[in-house]
């Protein structure tokens, strides 16, 4: 996808990195599960177009196990990591609670690439307005896609789309503001 600024960015932000461990822990709070069940529950609720890899589930569970946040409640015959049944420990519950209570760091979304492109266009005598128009069209194309996707009855998915739509809208407001100030910006950067 052109631009590389897709709704996946937001899904990745909301459940990416360290927080996959916390998410899996949270899913275990309702009762013990096998690794495969955990992956399925994660994909259903949070994975959407970006399911977890099995390897990621098992490496995460191994880490949680090592840190005492989960324990193995039972192993079915046949061996292999998929046979383990995990349960959350008291330390694990405390960890989920602390994670939920901790506010996420607001993303500054400094539009560095776009800003750089605009300034370079002005410095080199190219049309920054055309660049902004092209970007607006690309943002709107993605916003249409997300708006269409929202017509499904899946409320959870609608909320994910809304999150992305509000961020894209914020970008567009920045694009409009920059477009309206291009003459001033040109004067400032070429001084």
């Amino acid at each position: 996808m052109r631009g590389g600024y897709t709704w996946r960015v937001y899904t990745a932000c909301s459940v990416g990195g360290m927080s996959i461990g916390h998410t899996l822990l949270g899913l275990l709070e309702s009762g013990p599960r096998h690794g495969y069940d955990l992956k399925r529950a994660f994909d259903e609720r949070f994975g959407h177009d970006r399911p977890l890899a099995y390897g990621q589930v098992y490496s995460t569970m191994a880490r949680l196990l090592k840190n005492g946040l989960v324990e193995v409640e039972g192993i079915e015959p046949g061996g292999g990591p998929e046979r383990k049944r995990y349960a959350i420990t008291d330390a694990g519950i405390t960890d989920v609670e602390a994670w939920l209570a901790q506010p996420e760091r607001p993303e500054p979304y400094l539009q560095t690439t776009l800003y750089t492109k605009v300034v370079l266009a002005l410095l080199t005598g190219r049309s920054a307005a055309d660049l902004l128009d092209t970007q607006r069209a690309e943002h709107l194309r993605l916003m249409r896609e997300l708006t269409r996707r929202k017509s499904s009855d899946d409320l959870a998915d609608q909320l994910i789309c809304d999150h992305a739509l509000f961020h894209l809208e914020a970008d567009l407001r920045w694009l409009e503001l920059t477009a309206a100030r291009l003459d001033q910006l040109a004067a400032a950067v070429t001084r």
Partner: protein
Amino acid sequence: MTTEPLLQATDVRKSYGRTAALDGADLTVRAGEVVAVMGPSGSGKSTLLHCLAGIVRADSGELRYRGQDLTAMSDGRRSALRRSDFGFVFQFGQLVPELTCLENVAIPLRLAGERRRAAEAKAAAWLERLEVADVAGQRPGEVSGGQGQRVAVARALVAGPRVIFADEPTGALDSLNGERVMRLLTDAAHDTGAAVVLVTHEARVAAYSDREIVVRDGKSRDTERVS
């Protein structure tokens, strides 16, 4: 798209006194498509809509609706065309405060000569479709902003227009009500085959369109036409 244009504006200019509101605007609208007209406040997007709808007469340029030259039409003919072929939704509903919501929706049909009973039956069906059947007997001052806008959309659609002109239709609504109005408006337009010219400065509203054009300093470029 290969279908013939329903509405076509070429190099349209319009000034109010010494202020040029439109300074060479182009736009093509085909049957059944939703086109968003975007741009900052004061860019001329509402003036473009008014020229396209024949509400104001352009100073120069070409405006064609189904092949007919709008600029050459008499005021009377343009008024008749607006009643028969166009529907309108504005930012603040602009419903008649003394009439009930049902009577408001029936206005375009009554103006076209339809009998009260038949007109109100059709109006009731549209209120149902726009999910505001429960306010049929109430006056506009007694309903919420979101309900009033849905009544206005019903009124715009009731006479089966070929084009709906919507000028900031969600401008006075919160996000949820705005989205509901847009969803109902665009779904109904798609179902009836009506085109929509949607003036908005909000990207989330424009995202309900099939494509957008941008007006800046009275100029617009229709990428559809360029390509």
